Structure formats: C-alpha cells, structure tokens
C-alpha cells in the first residue's frame, strides 16, 4: 500500500513536469493553453491524492479550486481573448525550442541536485515532491523569460504557480495552504482579465510585450 501511494504521487508530479516541458516546447498560443489546462488538471489530481493519503480533507478545496479555475475557467477565457485579439496563430520565442529544452533539462538537474541531498529529516516522498515542484517552478520561470507575448507570460506564471501549489500541498500539515491557493487564483484571474491584457490591447493593438519597449522613458528624443 505504501508503495502504491508513493507511485501514484510520483506519477502525477512527474506528469506535471512532462507537461511543463510540453509547455515550453509549444509554439502556438492555443496549444499552449490546452497543455496548461491539462497541467492544472494533473495538479488537481495530485493535490487530491495528497489530501487522500495525508488525511487532510481541506486540501480537496485546493484541488477543486485548481480544477475549476485553472483547469477550465481561465484557459477558456484566455482562448476567447486570444481569438478576439486574433493572435491564436502567433508565438514568438526569444530562443528556439531546442535550446530551451536543453536549458529546461539543466534546470531539472539543478533542482534535483539542490533538493535531494538536503532535508535528511524529510521522507523521501516529500523530498521528491519538492524536487518535482521546484523543477516545475523553474520551468515556469524559463517560460516567462523565453516568451515575449503577454498571454504566454501569464501562462508561464500560472504554470509556475502550479509548482508552488504542488510544493505547498506536499508539505505535510502546512497551515493556510487553502487560503494561499485561493488567493493566488483570485490574483491571477484579476490580472488576467481586469487590468493588463485589456489595457495593453487598448493602448498598443498588440499584446507583444516587446512593443512596449518602444516606450521606454529615457530616450534622447524626449529631450
């Protein structure tokens, strides 16, 4: 029984990591959104599994929030925005898919070598979960820096946040986890829809963040 519990947790966390790699590899926005939704659903399963074997029913709330908000509502809304802005075909990567994947592999190696040797007091499963979570976080970061498009940057941030939720739920008995995950979802929803994309669209007719760079403050022609 012990080993089954371990294997399933492993499978789900590993699945999230694989989906992270798919995310940084995708070069179309709509495909990116679908992969992200899949990752959020995997996260929900992983959290629910933690809730089950840690005997922590409140984690089911976190799982449900992840499933509903990040698995369905936000991807659907982003799909709509993307269609409205007519950018569903384009994605600009700062560096190509191949080098990004190699960088990603390096980050995974880094997170394993950082987390696995320390924390002798922790159970193996907690440490492995942590290593997986850190890898997902770092890949999310990588995605944020290798994409120039505002929508994909948000997806990168959300994927990073999936890693955080995985880490927080893997930490046995950590207080306030549910509150954190709910607060994060509200935050993301807020930023995604309310403020930035709309304004960026309204002001620039593009959500390509590099277009913003034209407006840097300190140029000599301002003088």
């Amino acid at each position, binding site marked *: 029984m012990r080993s089954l519990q371990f294997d399933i947790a492993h499978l789900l966390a590993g699945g999230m990591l694989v989906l992270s790699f798919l995310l940084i590899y995708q070069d179309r926005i709509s495909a990116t959104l679908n992969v992200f939704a899949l990752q959020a659903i995997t996260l929900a399963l992983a959290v629910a599994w933690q809730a089950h074997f840690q005997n922590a029913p409140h984690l089911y709330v976190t799982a449900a929030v992840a499933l509903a908000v990040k698995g369905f509502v936000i991807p659907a809304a982003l799909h709509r925005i993307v269609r409205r802005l007519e950018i569903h075909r384009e994605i600009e990567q700062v560096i190509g898919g191949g080098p990004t994947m190699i960088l990603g592999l390096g980050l995974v190696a880094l997170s394993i070598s950082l987390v696995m040797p*320390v924390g002798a007091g*922790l159970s193996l499963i907690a440490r492995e979960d942590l290593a997986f979570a850190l890898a997902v976080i770092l890949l999310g970061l990588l995605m944020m820096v290798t994409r120039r498009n505002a929508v994909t940057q948000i997806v990168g941030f959300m994927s990073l946040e999936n890693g955080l939720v995985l880490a927080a739920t893997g930490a046995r008995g950590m207080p306030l986890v549910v509150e954190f995950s709910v607060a994060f979802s509200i935050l993301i929803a807020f930023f995604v829809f309310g403020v930035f994309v709309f*304004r960026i669209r309204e002001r620039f007719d593009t959500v390509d963040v590099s277009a913003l760079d034209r407006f840097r403050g300190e140029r000599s022609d301002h003088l």
Partner: protein
Amino acid sequence: MITPLNAILWIPAFAVPLLALVPNYRAGAAINVIASGLTFAAGVSLLFAERVRSDILIIDDFNIFLVTVTTFVAFTTSIFSASYIGHELETGRLTPVFLRFYHALYQAMIGAMNVALVANNIGLMWVGVEVATLSTVMMVGIYRTPEAVEAAWKYFILGSVGIALAFFGTILVYLVAQDVLGEGLPAMAWDLMVQKAASFDPRMLSLAFVFLLVGYGTKVGLAPFHAWLPDAHAEGPTPISAVLSGLLLNVALYALLRFKMLLAANPGTLNVGIIMIVLGLVSLVFAAFMLFRRRDIKRLFAYSSIEHMGIITFAFGMGGALANFAGLLHMTMHSLTKSAIFFAVGHVTQVKGTQQIARITGLSVSHPVLAVGLALGVLAIAGLPPFGVFLSEFLLVSSTFARQPLLALVLVAGLLIAFGALVLRLQQVLFGKPSGSSGQVKASYVPLFLHLGFVLVAGLWLPEPIVRWFRVVAAQLG
C-alpha cells in the same frame, strides 16, 4: 477589544471599502489622511502598550520601531498626496473614478505593510508583502499612459517571480521547522522557530534562505533584480514613489532580516553574509554609476534608492553589533529622507510640468522654498553632515575599515561616485535660467520639512529608547 495592534490592521481594512465608495475626491483625500493619521496614532500608542505575541502576530523590539516609521511616513505621504492629486485632476491625468481606486489602494497597501511587519506567522508575512506589492503595481499603472502600462507590467512580471521564489523559500522553512516543532501553526511562528533554530537542519535552512534572498531581494530592488524599480518610480504618481522607496523596500528587507535572524541562531548554516555583501556592493556601485546618466528626475532618485538599499544590505551582510546598528539606522534615515525628496520632486514636476532634468532649471529663483527643501533633502541623502544619513554611513564605513579595509574602499568609492552624481544633478536643477512656470505651488510644505527636521535631529542626537531597540535587534541579527 481594541488594542493598538488591532487598530493598525483594522483601520486601513475599514478605510479600503469606504474610500472605494466615497465619490467625492476631496472627501476621499480627507478620509485617507484621517485614516492614515489614526493608524499612525495607533502605531505610536503601540510603543506604550504591552508587548504581545501569538502564533499569528507579534510585537517585538525589531518591528515596533518600523511600525512607527511606516505609519508615520504613510501619514505624511497621505497629506502630501492630498495636495498632489488636486493638480493631477486639473491637468486631467487622473479622473475622479481613478482617484477612488487610488485612495482605496493606498490604504490597502498600508494595511498590508502593517500586516507584514507585525506578522509572526511567516506565511502571513509573505501575504502582507505580496498584497502591498500588488496594490502598488496597480497604482503604478494608474495613469494608463504607454510608459505607465509598461512599468506596471514589468513590475508585475518581476514581482511575480519574487513572489514565487519567496513563497518556495517559505515552504522550505516550514518543512525544516516542522521536523522540530511538529505540524501546524507553531512551525510557522517566527519566535518559536528562533528559539529552536539551533536544532534545524542547517543545509535545508541555507537553501531556503537563498530562495528568500532572491525572492524578497527582488522587492528590495537589489541589482541584478532591480529592473522594475526605476520604471515603477518614474511612471506612477509621486506619492506612490515616496512610499515605494520609503516604505515598501524597507518592509521587504525587514522580511529578509527576520529569516537572517533564524540563520544567525543556527551555527551550521551557510555564511549568507558574503552573498549579502556582494549583492549590496554590486547594487551600490552599479546604481552610483547609473546616477550619472539619468535624464529623468524621478528615475534619478529611484536609482539612489537602489544605491541605499545596497548600502543597507551590505551593512547587514557585514554583521556585528556596529554594522547592524548602522544598517538599522540607515533604514530609518533613508526612509524619512527619500520620501521627503519625493515630496519635493512631486511639487517640482507639477510646477515645471516635466520630469526631464534638462527642462527643470533655475528652481532657486522661481521657487526658493521648494529649492531649499529639495537641496536639503539631496544633501542629506548624499551623506553630508549633520544629517542622520551621514551618521549611519560614517558608522558603517568606520566599522568596515576596522574589519575589511578592501571592502571599505569599494564602499567609499560607491558613496563618493553617488555623491558626485547627485550634487551635479542638483545644481543643474537649482541654478541657471528659470524654466517653465513660476506660479505658486499649491502645496503643504509641512511633511517635507518635518521629515528633514527628524533627519537633522537624528544626526545630532538619537533618543535613548531608539538606541536601545537598535542594540537589541543588532545583537539578534548576528
């Protein structure tokens, strides 16, 4: 029951919805000032109240003085803001609807900073820093010009990365503590953790600190994570620049120092002092050189904030009673001086109608009082005696010379370069043929000169209780 501790948290919490609902902007500004004033009064009465702790909140020597400074600067900035926004409405840069939003966010930020300061639970502290950051993100973007949107977006992206890494560090600290303190709330209570820190796993604690350093360091504005800071200062409303520089950077640094205390209580941990020294000196020297190339007056002082955060981080990295004391004093002095400078800069940019330094000339002729205020502020921040900034920098330089002369050389070089740049820019602004309008400033000079007065007094004489708090905290910081 109403205790001062509850008051500093609940007054802003009640003010947020109230301000969001009040349509009249004058009433909104007045409520903002009153709420900030009441919070400040509660912050002061905290000094005389009984020290309390729970697993969630704590009042100790460290945060009690920072709460006072924070609520004070928040109060004076709200007065400055009230005189600032009238002009923004006249020029049409802000509309009444956005002002409601602005005032509500202002109180949200103050409440969140107070939460971060008095939190004993490290998770709650994280929430406080984040909410404060995100409310400033929205205020930075409030003018909705392309520049402002870019600044807010950059701030949001970099801030989110900081958020994420700091949260991961917090989880790691909990995992370490949970081993010793058991599951649940006690394993996130800072004071319990410090008592037991010696038996924590040192390697994991060091790893956690690295994440916290990068995460909170992004918000402190340390190079190379500083990219958001100059834009956020330059494109947002000036009162927000004042609280960003004066308060939010301090609060982020405070969070980091709480964790440094944990490491100081555990002998087996990595020597994080070296990392902080390097980050601090890099920020200092980098910002000092960047000061020369600034054309925008608010960006100029934003880089000066990076420089000073570098100095403070360096001081805590050096450690030891004297350097820590200097660091704490410098935190306070920088907070008061930099916000005073932004008050002056806010009025200057409004009367001159531009932030470009080249277009602001002859201030001493057109607006003598404002020129005196700005000049005193800049001389104080540049580290001239008899102001308080000189005192803390002198303490730091002399204690560094005694221990690490080579590092002291770098420190002094950075300070001198920054001094040169600031004085150069200051004389461009003050002298020459007056530019722009010479119309009167509809402004209150009280906050500006009150801050400068405090900085002057602190440079000449530090009251006994403050010295005592600083000593106790300096010892805990290791």
